[in-house]
């Protein structure tokens, strides 16, 4: 369970100050606010793309958080020390994924009620399945994002390169998550034809987790 220790370490660094939760919260609110200025939230169309809107916010916050994932180890050459320690590449990678996952999920869970208020959408009846979709989508995003964070950690253009590489590859999961979230927010259950999206999301998570774990060791040791 070494990866849990790595995750705990990252989370501790991140949550060093109590302000960080406040920061995530206000960050989410601010983005939602921004969207409400860009698109008329009172229009009928909102219901149709509520899932899309929400996941855009998540993807945006995700890029910011994932950028830090490995970059955090750069000052003081901590990454070298970790790689030279008995912690395996896969454990290190998994630990960092879990830490980003927890951070992002926190932001998302805070976002949801705020979103509900701003856009007048009821989500409480569907809270549990929504949480499930959030978890599945976020896991896909963090597993891929952490891998790319490791790939780009030594680049000077890291901040632009990471989202540029991540978003296109993440799209299948993102699309599925957007669609499923929209369905749930409209008050419907996921059934029938829509199960395809759920299967896509789960498949994406499994395939990319396996692929990442298999390849990460090669990435970290140069």
């Amino acid at each position, binding site marked *: 369970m070494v990866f849990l220790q790595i995750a705990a370490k990252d989370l*501790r660094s991140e949550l*060093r100050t109590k302000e960080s939760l406040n920061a995530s919260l206000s960050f989410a609110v601010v983005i939602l606010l921004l969207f409400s200025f860009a698109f008329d939230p009172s229009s009928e169309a909102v219901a149709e793309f509520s899932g899309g809107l929400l996941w855009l916010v998540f993807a945006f916050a995700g890029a910011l958080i994932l950028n830090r994932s490995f970059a955090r180890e750069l000052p*003081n*050459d901590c990454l070298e*020390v970790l790689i*030279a320690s*008995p912690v395996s590449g896969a454990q290190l990678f998994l630990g960092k994924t879990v830490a980003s996952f927890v951070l992002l999920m926190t932001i998302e869970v805070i976002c949801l009620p705020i979103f509900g208020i701003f856009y007048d959408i009821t989500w409480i009846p569907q809270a549990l399945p929504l949480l499930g979709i959030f978890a599945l989508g976020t896991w896909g995003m963090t597993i891929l994002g952490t891998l790319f964070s490791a790939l780009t950690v030594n680049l000077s253009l890291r901040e632009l390169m990471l989202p540029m590489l991540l978003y296109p590859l993440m799209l299948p999961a993102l699309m599925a998550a957007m669609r499923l979230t929209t369905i749930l927010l409209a008050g419907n259950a996921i059934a029938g034809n829509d199960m395809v999206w759920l299967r896509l999301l789960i498949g994406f998570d499994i395939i990319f987790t396996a692929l990442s774990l298999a390849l990460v060791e090669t990435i970290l040791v*140069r």
Partner: protein
Amino acid sequence: MPEPVLAVDHVFKYFGDYPALHDVSFSLNGGECLALIGRNGAGKTTMLKILAGLSGAAQGEVRLFGDSPRQASARRRIGLLGHGIGVYDELTAIENLTIFAQLYGVSAAVARHWLERTQLAHVANAPVREFSRGMRQRLAVARAFLHDPALLILDEPFTALDDRAIALLQGLLAEAKAAGRTIIMSTHQLREAMELATHVALIERGKLVHFGVRSAEMLADPTYVYRTFGAA
């Protein structure tokens, strides 16, 4: 003959087409301490990084405890002190050490013990960000010694330490040596290193131009090695 703790066998390393290491071979046994000496840019850090498994050799082979440096069993027995101090600025001294204690599977009491040995106990709960440069280096020393490694790889360990801390580190190293640990360190503070070294290696532009036991002359006059074995 038993397997040496550390064996470097015809190692080459290139950066682009610049040969940072050229055909380097040597080996060390338990209880030996090698002072790796060389001018700025000679290739000392490059060599130590390859030993620590942070970087791969282009040709040749490195064996630690008869194993590849990337083997978890080998890594568990390495203590690394590089150019960077390898601790987190935003965490406190004790948090940092506790994290590394966990990663190496030693108890948290050991972390506190090393904080005391490096005389940082009074700032155990201050974030590393607030440490002076020498205090940071002490913490890095504590981190490297934490799990009682069988092989210590130290890159300029005396940097930023005051006279007392240097004496302390020398004491720690002498103790480790006496306990049969192997030490390899690069440094420009030759006086401090020669007292400890059992062996001395001189690298010049990536080539190992001398490897041998430390002689009495070297102890008396640190630049003796450069003058006797160096080309330029």
